[in-house]
């Protein structure tokens, strides 16, 4: 068998080798393209205000300085935003994972083994399509539940992430039924099956979903903008969005006077880097599970 492969190699060596070289080169080039924007961002944030405003920065800091960072991090706003984002991620991910697991287990069952499953599917999928829109959600969360300015307004409304639920459900379906059978024979209940068999066997999928949930919560900005009425409760993404939106249209003297105090470009870039950094830190540890944890659908036998 090895012989065959070798022979094949020799036969195609020239064309294939050229291809390999180009292929590797191409992949490397594309990797650079993936990273360049972030390098540019970093270079801008560490350049002097004059250089950044003067469009003189590309991939290397000009007149290197960390003043944008020291200024950003000495600002209470940034610190409290980071705190809010962290709290949101911790609570939000915990809640999402709990409900995703709880729902994915029964829903991974066949229709026959779990009567009513179809109804649940329709019930859940319907919410992917229809929503009440801005006013009623706002009314519910702000007026009825009084959640404005609390982290709960950010974590409760999407406690059941439908997309993640589908991924986990499909992962559960892949688990060989033989293992489960043995446990059933031993008299295991559903809770035991879930905690002793399904969860340990689904670590890859679970970690993938944790990554998704973390990033989802970290990046969300719109809910923060409407439910947080005091910027000290803004998550960092909301803060970034609101700030970069605000400096785009200055037409009153008040705006101008206030904006003069946050020499914009380097600061915005520093905020951007600060906002990206946690993802950069978490990503290497969790991304390797994505490949095996992401299961989109299941084969019909």
């Amino acid at each position, binding site marked *: 068998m090895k012989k065959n492969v070798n022979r094949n190699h020799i036969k195609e060596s020239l064309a294939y080798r050229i291809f390999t070289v180009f292929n590797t080169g191409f992949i490397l080039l594309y990797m650079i393209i993936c990273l360049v924007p972030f390098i540019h961002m970093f270079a801008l944030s560490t350049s002097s205000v004059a250089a950044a405003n003067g469009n003189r920065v590309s991939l290397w800091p000009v007149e290197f300085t960390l003043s944008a960072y020291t200024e950003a991090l000495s600002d209470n706003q940034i610190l409290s935003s980071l705190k809010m984002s962290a709290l949101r991620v911790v609570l939000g991910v915990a809640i999402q994972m709990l409900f995703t697991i709880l729902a994915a287990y029964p829903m991974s069952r066949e229709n026959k083994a779990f009567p009513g499953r179809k109804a649940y599917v329709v019930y859940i999928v319907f919410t992917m399509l229809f929503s009440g829109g801005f006013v009623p959600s706002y009314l519910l969360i702000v007026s009825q539940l009084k959640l404005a300015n609390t982290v709960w307004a950010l974590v409760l409304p999407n406690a059941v992430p439908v997309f993640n639920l589908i991924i986990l459900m499909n992962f559960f379906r892949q688990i060989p039924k033989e293992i489960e059978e043995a446990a059933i024979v031993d008299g295991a209940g559903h809770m035991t099956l879930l905690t002793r068999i399904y969860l340990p066997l689904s670590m890859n999928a679970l970690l993938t979903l944790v990554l998704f949930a973390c990033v989802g919560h970290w990046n969300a900005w719109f809910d923060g903008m409407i439910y947080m009425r005091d910027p000290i409760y803004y998550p960092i993404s909301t803060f970034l969005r609101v700030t970069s939106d605000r400096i785009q249209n200055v037409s009153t003297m008040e705006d101008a006077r206030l904006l*003069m105090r946050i020499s914009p470009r380097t600061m915005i870039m520093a905020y951007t880097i600060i906002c990206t950094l946690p993802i950069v830190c978490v990503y290497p540890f969790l991304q390797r599970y994505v490949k095996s944890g992401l299961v989109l659908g299941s084969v019909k036998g």
Partner: protein
Amino acid sequence: MKKRILAGLLALVLLLTVAPFAMAEDKYDPLGRYEEPVTIRIMREKQNIWFPEGESIYDNVITRFIEEKLNIRFDIVWAVEDGQYGQQINGAMAINDLPDVFQVDASQLFQAYRADQIQPLQEVYDLYASEEVKEILSYNNNLFFSKSSFDGKTYGYPRTDDFASGTPIMFIRQDWLDNLNLKAPTDLESFIAVCDAFTNKDPDGNGLHDTYALAMDSAGSYNMYCRAFAHMTGNVADAWLEGEDGTLYYTDIQPETKEWLKVMQDFYAKGYISKEYISLGTDRMAYEISGGKTGIMMGYFWTALYQPQMSVIANPDAKWVAYPIPAYPDGSYHVQADNSCYSWLVVNKNFEHPEALIKLQNLWYEMWRGCYSDWYHGLNATTYAEAQEDFKYYPPFWWDPPLKNFEIGANLRKVYDSGNMDTSFIDDDPEAVKAFTVMEDYRNGNKENYYGWSHYTNNMYAWNVVEDVYGGTDPSRYMMSRSQAPMTSKIARRLPLVDSLRTESFDKIIMGADLDSTFDAFVKRWNSVGGKDLYKEYNAWYKENKNVYWPD
């Protein structure tokens, strides 16, 4: 029967609440202190204001002063991010969960009125507003109230802006002019010449073809450029004016509009305007300006505070000077101005003390230039000097009289004209004295005092332009749109449509679309998407109200 008892009780309650005032000597004292504390729930922007240790927007020297004088307290229920106020009010209005006193724009004011969320203020305004305040706010035949009045009653307390807030002023890099031995342009022809030189003749002398003339962007100052271009071809942009038959017509659908669009189109084609102006917000254009890429701005009278100041900080050699925009073809000036009130303070229907707002504004006037002015400006000059002009943001509500900056400019000129730099005779205008101090600090060699620099540029150059060239404070010298009607359901729906249609079509033309056909298509669509309705609505209102606001 039950109803009657209820009504009786209600009357009694009313009587009891009104009673203390009835017994007071002056029933409607503009500064009358409440016996019982009155708390106003408000929303306010956080604003990046300097406070001394221990003070904040929640509790500071001014809010304590207000409590002492009027017994009014503020409960800041919503402390929102700067720039988010409007959206948060939209949300609050949508679920009917509103502060007691809040600020709205014309469209929000109409929606709140329609939803019955706010109360009329006419009566309390007439009863409580102090004479000085009434005098100031009646500027221009009460035009500040036109958009907030429904059925002859005002629902909004105008938050006035400077009378020149919509008047374009031209800022130029004087050092560039000097480099090229040019004079500031005064008409279309010389303007084109200067723009061409700024674009093609290397005004910054760096040997590169890397500059362009006009710092036009698509955001904050876009309208200023339209107004300036319209002016230099003898037209008016985006306004409703009275035609010969006495009805209002919209300027931008008239064929003459093509005259100035043509000029802008040429400018774009020749590269005098940034090729990517359309995608540049104020921020990105500010980077271009401070990066020394461009040398002419059509700005506001206060513009020196922002982009030119950034430019001077980045490059101390940059020298920005304010000039009048190029004149009408016949050399005269008929510059556009706004009815300089863009927002109003309104009072929640359920709030029991609408007069508290009137009193607060009275008190603000007294602090600014009345009986408490020494105290107020004294504080601002000493303990609170670091807050600079932001000191006025300490209380939640304040206002700028429309002629405030103009008077400051006039007083400063008096000082400089007198030659002996003596400010004692303008002591009744403490803000002018304050401005004089920072300006002198800058002029006497503290070149790092950029704030002084901006003040100097604004107050000397820009003010001179308004006073000497544009016509000072005489409203008849300016062109002002007469579409000052309060919103109606129709206007509220159509206005965003036609406005966005206008900017979209004009941008296309500027960027090179065929002038005639694009413009004709624009006029046609303008009529069909709602322009005709606007025409009807505005004219119906104008017929009724012309004599009220334009009595001549």
